[in-house]
């Protein structure tokens, strides 16, 4: 019985890696999007596994339900026949391999010196008793209010920028 959490975690960690590889190696972008959908569900399950039920639900609603559908929308409007016949690698691929390999080695090396921080007030028991949504809301709107407001300001600027760009295009026509 005590092996069960490790088993679950092992499955999700392994599946996330395999699915990410599938996403970036498919030639047909629509198939990539479908694998990515499955990937998002595995990531959501991982959050659920960590008792973060609110984040899990938001992961599916926002990433799978809104952002990925918009991706799909753009991909569907591409000319897929051209896409399928194009070469798999661009000319400068050795440089890309070098850079990403370097980043991978750096990250892997830094994994060795990871140390867990001190335990906070929010134990699993507390989160399960108060419910994750409530805990997250309380801490987000008190302790982390300032970063939260900055993040919303950044998003607002993006929205305003998109509208300004769209309006400019309309006027010039």
């Amino acid at each position, binding site marked *: 019985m005590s092996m069960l959490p490790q088993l679950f975690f092992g499955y999700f960690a392994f599946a996330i890696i395999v699915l990410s590889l599938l996403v970036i190696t498919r030639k047909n972008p629509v198939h990539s999007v479908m694998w990515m959908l499955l990937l998002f569900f595995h990531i959501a399950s991982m959050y659920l596994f960590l008792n973060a039920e609110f984040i899990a639900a938001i992961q599916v609603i926002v990433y799978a339900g809104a952002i990925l559908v918009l991706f799909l929308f753009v991909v569907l409007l591409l000319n897929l026949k051209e896409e399928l016949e194009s070469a798999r690698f661009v000319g400068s691929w050795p440089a890309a391999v070098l850079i990403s390999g370097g980043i991978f080695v750096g990250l892997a090396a830094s994994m060795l010196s990871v140390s867990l921080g001190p335990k906070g007030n929010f134990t699993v028991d507390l989160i399960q008793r108060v419910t994750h*949504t409530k805990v997250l809301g309380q801490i987000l709107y008190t302790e982390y209010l300032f970063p939260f407001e900055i993040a919303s300001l950044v998003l607002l600027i993006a929205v305003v920028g998109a509208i300004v760009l769209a309006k400019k295009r309309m006027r010039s026509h």
Partner: protein
Amino acid sequence: MSDLFMQALTFIRSFGILGEIFIALLKIVVVFSVTLLHVAYATYWERKVIAHMQFRLGPREVGPYGLFQPFADGIKLFFKEDIIPANADKPIFYLSPVIFFISALTSLSVLPFFDGFVVADINVGILFLLAMSSLGAYGIVMSGWSSGSKYAFLGGLRSASQVISYETPMGLSLVGVMIMAGSLNLTDIVKGQFAYPTGAYVIPQFIGFFVFMVAMFAETNRLPFDLPEAESELVAGYFTEYSGFRFAMFFLGEYTGMLIMSSIGTICFLGGWTLPKFVMDALPFLYQVPAIFWVVVFLAKVYAFMFFYYWIRATLPRYRYDQLMAIGWKVLIPIALFNIVLTGTLKIMGWL
């Protein structure tokens, strides 16, 4: 009878985790089969209602009053030839009706049908329902694309933008209910309404209810917002190339989706399986009624929503596409946001 039932339950529970899994499976089988039966008769009832609204008689040949018509339809669809278009992207063509149907059925698992009967009583029930309804959009979009037909493709694209646009007002319209109940758990929301003076959130949350009702039609692709399958423009929309049982999956999924939207409306705005507390206090013998009979109240409310679906279908013509988008973004989202601000302010002032 109920003693025997409780004994059986304790016996199964004594097996520990295996017993719990067995009970969950049993609940899933019950919910699944009962829902499919309701879906079958929802189609029959729709044909009858619309027929009578148009001074016709509707189905009446198969069985008394045509009552066996849904089974005749099912058998016909099951034995029809399964045609796969040569242009189709096969894996996705096979997969998309399954995604559509499964996402509709999965939503059933968090709905409380009466006190204590819910397959999975999770804390983020409303969010789970919204997540599953957004997953259903993939079934539609991918079926449109994978068919390799331009009508199906246009239907799929229309559906994608429509569902994204109306998910936002639908989620926002439920925020008022979440604020009032102080919970995302559907059972807690129903209990909160029972304790509330009006007995249902539809009265204080009438703005949210209106937004929800409009968004409900768009989310399930029903008239007057059935643009993804507008037959005068797109043959049959996203499922043009589907036949036989694959088509039936879309059909069943659509009706299951309608039943789920009706259930969400019932649970969040009409008080679920409960009657208002003042009615219960006026008729105290109602407190003696066993929990299972309250499913009748729940179903009566759900079918009121279903009747509204049929009624609108028989009454209103289809909207134009730009009108649909304008209503979603320029009317529903602003008033849903206003409702959230209003509800939040009143809650802080202590007037709700």
